[in-house]
């Protein structure tokens, strides 16, 4: 190209570039002007990692979801105190019959956010929603197996008939145990149907429902209820889904949200940014679980031997794991998922110590002096990005006692659909994974999901476990049930099928403008939100 045409080209190019830059700058300036308005002081926006199935109908989603998105708008029949003891909710009292086969519930005065009164008919209707075979709420299967009928005695009294004693029935009416205690208005639900109710739910809780943007957020407004719960400190509440951990933290730092779920490794960044860290203590147990116990296919495998599983557990330096992998945010639990508020909790329980020498000895005694290779599935879990790092750390500890780890990276959906198959697929027999479970104050959860062969995640389908579980199910008093649960937990612990690595709080970064909370131990986020207030 000639010099002349080069100059011409340059000139044309400069003009084109100039127009382009001007357009981009204009777009940028226009965008900046149209950016997010600063949230008003009356607004509380919360960023969470999951909204579950986003079905706010208490009978249609898990307690983990209803505990976040439903707890702001629903009241429960019973409500826990901060020390995990049970207190009144919509129900002011509950009385067990002499034959232990029915409970009578008396209601206090309360109104739904549409202005109608909460009645015994509403409670009966709400319970019966969970008795429907299509109900997919947590523990709905258990309720169906226990409850035979619900009878209304008066406007404020009803009786629940059972086919077997249920000494902790009142606990089942609280948000620690399930969504069965959450009350919805019968007349409104029947008028709009299940889909209509999901789209515009009504409850008697401290907030009223405003809007649901599917896949994005739930929006609420303060309802100022005349209930047992506190009036909210903010006028408007938004619970929004921000799946990516880094984005949640950035939203918090930018001021777009006032409260954001964070991970332990983000705590330092939150503090450096001048923000606060709030905790719901004792929320999650991270555990090493082994598959195949009780299955004949595992008998000849190293991890089919309880002493080998114990050796593998003893070889893990849990305090160091908590420090390095969880940034110090964790404790060492004595028993897997058993909360201190759970019936049957034994304060004398102590966590096992780190002892690699004993681990080596146990391996040698079991016939594996030179170690072996074990498959460990490694899947990141929503809100728990540390799981793969924990698996790598465990592989290092096991290498020190001669055990090689074959880490199988996968996604959580794949491995969890594998370990829920019956019979377990061959590849899982003798394998392990690091999994998360919520710490429970729920007797029912322990009683019915603590690995017997009747549970979905059975890790210990042995005859002894089934016997202990059945004994717990048939207990006629709280004392009997407590003793049965203690025995069941001790037996499960002695089998090392779910070795607790760490107990972590649920962590939240909070804006400096937010006054802290006094949390419910192991409680769901939705239970805490009305307590948050702007700092005065």
């Amino acid at each position: 190209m000639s010099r002349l045409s080069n100059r011409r080209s340059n000139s044309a190019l400069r003009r084109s570039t100039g127009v382009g830059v001007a357009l981009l700058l204009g777009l940028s300036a226009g965008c900046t002007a149209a950016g997010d308005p600063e949230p008003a002081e009356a607004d509380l926006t919360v960023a969470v990692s999951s909204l579950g199935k986003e079905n706010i109908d208490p009978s249609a989603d898990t307690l983990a979801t209803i505990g976040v998105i439903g707890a702001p708008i629903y009241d429960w029949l019973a409500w826990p105190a901060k020390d995990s003891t049970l207190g009144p909710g919509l129900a002011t009292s509950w009385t067990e019959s002499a034959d232990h086969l029915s409970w009578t519930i008396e209601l206090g005065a309360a109104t739904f956010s549409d202005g109608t009164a909460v009645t015994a008919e509403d409670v009966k209707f709400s319970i019966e929603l969970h008795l429907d075979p299509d109900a997919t709420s947590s523990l709905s299967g258990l309720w169906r197996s226990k409850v035979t009928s619900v009878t209304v005695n008066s406007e404020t009294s009803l009786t629940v008939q059972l086919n077997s004693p249920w000494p902790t029935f009142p606990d089942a009416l609280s948000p620690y145990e399930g969504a069965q205690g959450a009350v919805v208005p019968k007349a409104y639900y029947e008028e709009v149907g299940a889909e209509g109710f999901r789209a515009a739910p009504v409850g008697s809780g401290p907030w009223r429902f405003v809007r649901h943007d599917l896949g994005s957020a739930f929006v609420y407004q303060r309802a100022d209820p005349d209930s047992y719960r506190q009036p909210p400190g903010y006028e408007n509440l938004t619970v929004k889904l921000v799946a990516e951990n880094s984005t949640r933290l950035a939203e918090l730092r930018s001021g777009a949200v006032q409260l954001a779920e964070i991970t332990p490794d983000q705590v330092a960044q939150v503090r450096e940014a001048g923000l606060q860290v709030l905790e719901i203590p004792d929320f999650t147990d991270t555990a090493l679980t082994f598959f195949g116990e009780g299955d004949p296919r595992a008998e000849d495998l190293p991890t089919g031997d309880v002493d080998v599983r114990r050796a593998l557990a003893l070889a893990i330096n849990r305090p160091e794991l908590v420090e390095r992998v969880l940034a110090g945010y964790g404790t060492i639990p004595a028993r897997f998922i058993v909360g201190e508020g759970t019936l049957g909790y034994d304060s004398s329980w102590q966590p096992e110590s780190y002892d690699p020498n004993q681990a080596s000895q146990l391996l040698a005694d079991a016939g594996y002096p030179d170690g072996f290779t074990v498959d460990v599935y490694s899947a990141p879990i929503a809100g728990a990005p540390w799981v793969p790092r924990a698996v790598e750390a465990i592989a290092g500890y096991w290498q020190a006692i001669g055990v090689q780890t074959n880490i199988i990276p996968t996604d959580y959906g794949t491995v969890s659909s594998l370990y829920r198959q019956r019979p377990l697929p061959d590849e899982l027999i003798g394998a392990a994974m690091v999994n998360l479970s919520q710490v429970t104050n729920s007797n029912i959860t322990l009683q019915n999901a603590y690995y017997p062969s009747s549970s979905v995640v059975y890790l210990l389908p042995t005859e002894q476990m089934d016997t202990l579980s059945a004994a717990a199910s048939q207990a006629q008093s709280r004392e009997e049930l407590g003793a049965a649960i203690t025995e069941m937990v001790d037996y499960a612990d002695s089998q090392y099928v779910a070795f607790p690595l760490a107990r972590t709080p649920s962590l939240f970064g909070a804006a400096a403008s937010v006054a802290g909370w006094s949390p419910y131990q192991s409680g769901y986020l939705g239970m805490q939100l009305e307590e948050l207030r702007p700092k005065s």
Partner: protein
Amino acid sequence: MGRYVVARLLQGCLTLLLVSFVVFVLTRSSGNPAVLNLPATASNADIERMTRQLGLDRPLVEQYGLYLAGLARGDFGESIRYQVPVDELLAARLPASLELAGIAALVAVVVACLLGMLVPLTGRRSVGAAVNAVSLAGISLPAFWVGLLAIDLFALRWEMLPVSGSGTPAHLVLPVLTLTLFIAGGMTRLLAAGVSEVTAGPYVRAAHARGLSTRRVVFGHVLRNASLPVVGYLGAYLPLLISSAVVVETVFVWPGLGSLAYDAVVARDFPVIQGVTLVGSAIVVLVNLGADLAIAWLDPRIRDGVAG
């Protein structure tokens, strides 16, 4: 030309049928969604009931037949996770994805044209090296990392733009920037090479010799001929653009098909995975057809071949 378009559309339909079958089989080999969508305390009877309700207990061929019959009626099924019709989800999410991908592709074309012409037309090595570095960075840097870096700089340090979300033009800037960097990188390199080759061509020298203005030479001859591979590139890169959008939409909480697909895969929400994949594939088919037609329009040799 009309017969060509019809033939390509029929070919596209066959492609979509094949895609629907492959996705159908692959999703069903990844586990039972009933166990993932019921609480951990659900009984085996609950799982069996839900499996029946979802029709997953039927033979695979029968399931696929029912799925195709539904598709013929415009019924994509119901989301297992959200329990709403899939077509409603797609209708709600598709506009956001098209908006993001469309604007990103448009901005990428503008940026690539500017940068691509900069190198050969200035003839400066330093400019060439800078453009080369920028375009290489665009190709090599993971969209996930670029997105987070953009958030850190523009939203947190300089407080110019919102971190994430949607609803205003400001919310578009960072996701568009992230996607643009990715697409424009490759496009710039192709265009720069094309412009270099074309500007050395005899017809460009002849055009200058005839006294045409530089603007007419650049836009009438150089750019038109140099853009042929770029149009082809856009069509070929669309699947990558869609897969990058999954990451970008997740990072920026953009309410499009990408974030919907991510959630659906995690929950093994088969109908949604199938719906998103089918819609994505249909877009790829249509855009590739559009790209081929555009190339035919730009290049008379190809146009004559197609018409003939």
